[in-house]
Structure formats: C-alpha cells, structure tokens
C-alpha cells in the first residue's frame, strides 16, 4: 500500500475513535440529571477540541511548503505556558497532572509559533494518553549547546523500540501501521516530526523503564529578548 493511501487510512482511523466516543457520550447522557449533563458537556467539548486540533494539524502538515509558516524568534516559555493552560483541565479530567520546569536562560528560539505549539501540544496529549493514573508528567525547558530543548516526560509504558528507532534515525516519514501501537497510529508523532523538520529542529525520544521523554531541540535566536 502506498504511503499516501496508508496515511489517509491512518488519519481516518484516528478520527473514528473520538467520533465514536462523542457519539457514545451523547447516547449515555441522562438529560434529567443536571450534574451528568454538565460533566458530559465538558467531556464532549474536550474530545471535540482535541479532534479539531488534530484535523487542523493535518491540514498544516499538508501545507507546510505553501509559505504559510514563517520562522521568527519565539518565546519558548510562553508557548509552553499556553499549552499548559489549554491542557490543564484535560490533565485533571484524566486524574493526571502536568508539572512545568524551566531552567533555560535563552528565552527565544527560531521557530514558527503555531508549529511549535502543535509539537508541544502533541507531546502533552501523548503523555495524558499513555501515563498511568495519578502520575505527574513533566514539561521541561532547558538550554542545550546552541539549542533549547523542550521535553515532555510521561510515566507509563515505554515507547515501542520500532518507533524509537524510526525517531532516532529520523525515518518516521509516514504514520506507522495502525496495528503497530494499539489505539495509536503514531499520527501525532508523525505530524510533530514533519513540523520539527520544517523548522530545522531535532525531534527525538528517550526510553525510560517507566515511561518516555519526547523532546524537540530548537536553535536559539540571538535577537535580544524583550520577554
């Protein structure tokens, strides 16, 4: 099967899961119970927002070469704060937490704000999905030899070696087969890799016995920081 057809199949599968969940939430909702209505409304919003984000990322990935995404100095901590602010409730909803740790002195990186946001967002959503209940994932920003490294550490099953090798050799050039990692096609990671490559950033993962750290390394901007 060619990569394009496989990519369409994978994207379709990724859309199917949240749509099936939204349908089930609507079917299970008891309109007589105001607490349940509120709770399910929150869940429906959360699932639909995540799905919309994924659709939007897919469109961006298809239009990277159209000159829509300019590279500019970006305040990396601000982007992390925005992601944390948006995903905070989702972490709570899943009985998980995200902890921020910023040790970087260089505040600006050369990147595109939207693409960088999507990469960090994808890492964090991945952490929600694969970390164990009540665990605290860590979003860390630190300086690293001419680069700023943004990493998200989760505590759950380790990344499969096959995806790890593809990331390490920068050969994740298509979503992996859907049977490869249950309930995940690696689509989010594939999109993140495409965005990172477009920004000339390095993307990678570190396997831990109790989880995975995904990271992106972005070149430091030498423009004077106003932040």
């Amino acid at each position, binding site marked *: 099967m060619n990569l394009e057809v496989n990519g369409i199949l994978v994207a379709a599968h990724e859309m*199917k899961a949240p749509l*099936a969940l939204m349908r089930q939430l609507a079917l299970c909702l008891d309109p007589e119970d105001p607490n349940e209505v509120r709770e399910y409304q929150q869940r429906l919003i959360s699932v639909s927002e995540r799905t919309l984000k994924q659709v939007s990322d897919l469109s961006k990935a298809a239009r990277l070469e159209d000159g829509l995404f300019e590279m500019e100095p970006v305040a990396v901590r601000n982007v992390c704060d925005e992601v944390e602010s948006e995903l905070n409730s989702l972490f709570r909803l899943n009985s998980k937490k995200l902890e921020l740790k910023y040790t970087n002195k260089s505040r600006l990186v050369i990147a595109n704000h939207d693409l960088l946001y999507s990469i960090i967002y994808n890492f964090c959503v991945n952490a929600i999905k694969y970390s164990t209940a009540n665990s605290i994932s860590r979003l860390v920003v630190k300086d690293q030899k001419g680069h700023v490294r943004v990493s998200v550490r989760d505590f759950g*099953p380790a990344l499969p070696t096959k995806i790890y090798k593809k990331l390490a050799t920068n050969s994740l050039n298509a979503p992996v087969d859907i049977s490869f*990692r*249950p*309930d995940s096609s690696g689509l989010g990671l594939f999109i993140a890799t495409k965005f990172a490559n477009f920004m000339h950033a390095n993307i990678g993962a570190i396997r831990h016995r109790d989880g995975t750290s995904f990271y992106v390394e972005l070149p430091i901007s030498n423009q004077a920081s106003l932040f």
Partner: protein
Amino acid sequence: MTSGKVTKTEQNQNEFRARSEFPTKSPIFIIDDDEMFADCIKKTIKKVDKNLEVIMFKNIIDAMNSLDENLPSLIFLDILLPGPDGFTFLNEIMSYPDTSKIPIILITSLNLEKFDLKVYGIKGILKKDKMKPEEIKVYVERYTN
C-alpha cells in the same frame, strides 16, 4: 429501654441496607484503555442495577492479576490495548477451567464479524461506532441474573 434483641423488622432493614451498600453479585470487568469510553459503559451497567460492581482496567496485565481475586460474571473487552492485546487475554482465560466459562463481549472498532470467535467464549461483538446503551443493558441482564 432496649432489650438488645434484634426484631424481625430491624433484621430485614439491616439486610436491605447491606444489599444496597455492598455488591452481592460477581463483578463485571471492563477492559478498555479509553477511560471515557469505559466510563460510559460503566454508567450504562449501573443503570441496569446500581448494586452491580464494575471494575475497569486499562490493560490486560492488571485485569489478569485481578482474576485471582475476583471472578467476574461478565467481561467487556476491547481488543486494541497497550501492551498485550485482547487476544492474549482471550487465550489466557481460555486456558483455565474456572475462567474459560466467563461470557465475554468484545467492544472494538475492528471488523471481527467474519471471524469465528465462539471458541473464545465470545457472546457478542459491539462495534464502537455503532453500539447503543440498550445493547449493553441486554448483555448485562442476560449474564448477571
């Protein structure tokens, strides 16, 4: 002044209270890594009988470990799971006499209808994109009463 003797009415009230607060039947397992989806199934089961105990698992390992302590009356099983998949679980429980009789309902987005899964004790397949709460209720009523 009370005599310390429990009257028949009090005894009945205590028994009723015990039945309401503590589940009396074997639990129902839901094995699905999608917590929100599993929670929908749990709520539907509770609408059939709020005293039914429902235990949710996100992976096969935890579910298998729990089988030693709780033998469920019914299992709702997703196939695609992190780590060992649903088929690993089916093979495992079929290999023990006490677990091989447990009715299992598959909840999946895969097209499994063409496969003969009766040998695994599969009593039904619910497609995640088409299933209705009423279908869950039917299985719960059939296999827990």
